[in-house]
């Protein structure tokens, strides 16, 4: 699975996710990536793209939950990501990336690694795996 989240200079957020799914999956299986609110979500506040065990991400409506705890609990972006990764995945293993309309970028994962990269207009840039 691959994904990208962006907030532009006007503060508009967007998210995109694309995948081949799981190796040796049953034909016709649908994972979290195309399900809006599970693997992908964007609203006024943030943009989120998830990856990992699709069935766990779907059950946790992971991407929407990041936006929901920002909206209803008033959490900042990284707090919201940490909360959702910690509280919504049960035994599932997953990761996600997110941006906020304030120009913040965040990520979180509860498995051993996630291929990721992030950058902000003030010059921050990071590419990492573990």
């Amino acid at each position, binding site marked *: 699975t691959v994904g990208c989240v*962006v*907030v532009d200079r006007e503060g*508009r957020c967007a998210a995109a996710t694309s995948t081949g*799914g799981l190796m040796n*999956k049953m034909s016709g299986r649908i994972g979290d990536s195309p399900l809006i609110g599970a693997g*992908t979500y*964007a609203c006024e506040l943030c943009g989120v793209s998830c990856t990992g065990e699709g069935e766990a991400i779907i059950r946790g409506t992971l991407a929407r939950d990041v936006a929901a705890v920002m909206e209803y609990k008033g959490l900042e972006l990284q707090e919201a990501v940490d909360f959702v990764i910690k509280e919504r995945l049960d035994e599932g293993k997953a990761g996600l*990336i997110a941006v906020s309309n304030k120009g913040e970028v965040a990520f979180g994962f509860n498995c051993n690694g996630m291929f990721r*990269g992030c950058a902000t207009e003030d010059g921050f840039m990071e590419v990492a*795996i573990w």
Partner: protein
Amino acid sequence: MGGWAIAVHGGAGVDPNLPPERQEQAKQLLNRCLNLGISALRSNFSAIDVVELVVRELETDPLFNSGRGSALTTKGTVEMEASIMDGPKRRCGAVSGLTTVKNPISLARLVMEKSPHSYIAFSGAEEFAKEQGVELVENEYFVTEENLGMLKLAKEANTILFDYRIPTVGLESCSVGAAAMDNPLLMNGLPIRVYAPE
């Protein structure tokens, strides 16, 4: 109002023994995609255009599990899915079950912009792709030697490979075996207990 920001990912759950050269390859692709997005943002592209542009690049490179280089079904074929969402009006588009569309993310965007729906799948999505004139290729284009090898491994292990914590029954501590024996029912090739909350 803050400035622009961008993040990309290539998947979670990494082989702990991933060779250093593969790690370097992955970092180079992530860097290339970040820089592609950054220069688009500096040229005042909108967020929705940038996410589509970057994911197209990731789908075209066979390194990660999407587009070319996608994971294989149990039949050894590729069935791809994608979705895109634009924050300001929460518009969205999604596709599943694609077998010939070179860049699934662009078809997802066309679903968002050129159809009355949010999600179109399988044969309907393929028909829509033909109507919209997106680039189509044979399913073989998406299949890589490496993934054929991974599929063989997954079949031998009678499981699905999405991360490296799949409990190997019998080989490890008997508790794992016992637990699995207690509840031998498998779902997607994994002991059902993995999905216990379900």
